[in-house]
């Protein structure tokens, strides 16, 4: 089982990297972008037997270390082995 965890700034928190990259794309002539956010993507290999167990591991990891609840939010997707 694998998971992808996405961590982004909360709404209202300045994302200076996002602003800089957005301006750079505009500078090189790429139009049609109305906002851009830079976050982190963490890929995790899980040694879990059930999806519930995986969710528990992921949320505990995010709540305790991976995301800062003051400034960040997280989401995740779980890919079960075929």
């Amino acid at each position, binding site marked *: 089982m694998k998971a992808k965890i996405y961590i982004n*700034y909360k709404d209202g928190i*300045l994302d*200076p*990297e996002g602003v*800089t990259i957005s301006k750079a794309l505009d500078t090189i002539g790429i139009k049609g972008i109305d906002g851009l956010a830079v976050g*982190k993507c963490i890929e995790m290999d899980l040694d879990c037997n059930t999806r519930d167990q995986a969710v528990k591991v992921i949320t505990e990891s995010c709540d305790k*270390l991976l995301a*800062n609840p*003051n*400034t960040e939010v997280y989401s995740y997707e779980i890919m079960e082995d075929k």
Partner: protein
Amino acid sequence: MKLWKINNMKCAVIVFPGSNCDHDAYYVAKKHLGIEVDFVWHKNSDLNNYDCIIIPGGFSYGDYLRAGAVARFSNIMSGIKSASEKGKAIIGICNGFQILVESGLLPGALITNNSTNFISKEIQLKVSNNNSLFTNKYTEQEIIRMPIAHKQGNYFADTELLNELKDNNQIAFQYKDNPNGSCLNIAGIFNKQKNILGMMPHPERAAEHILGSQDGIKIFESILSNI
């Protein structure tokens, strides 16, 4: 050594993998204040013998994930928490401030500078509260000079927390010209009990004329005069 004998004060400088201002802090405490100082490796957890704890600047654990995020799980943090509960003086400088914020010993967060650049320069600070263990040698509103050197020093707190910091007089220092986007120009804050100070500027790098400023030494002298 005279001061140490009078005060019998002992100071710990915490060392994490990646700390790089530990020797500066040690030097200031030892040579200028004449107190007994030890480096304490982060894997230890016993700080009972120390009256003052300095968490120095640097890049603990390479600033991976977020600055200070991994260091807060080191063994030493239990010793720092317990020292805090006993009311001992704890000062976190730069990365030390980031660790204190990540560990929840100080409120808020330190995010990337609004310019996205690493900023290394001398700045001017206003002493916003001189009624503390760390700032009593300054006059209120005194303007002082010391260097900053950071990329994640942009202090963030929501409106509710900012009001709380103001109401409790927890704002220690504010930038005269905000270099990084910090809310309310905040450069340093205390905890509610005011025995913990976290600040992004480097007082240990402003302790001798040859370094361009001596304004930082008063923080260490303030601590010394109170213990």
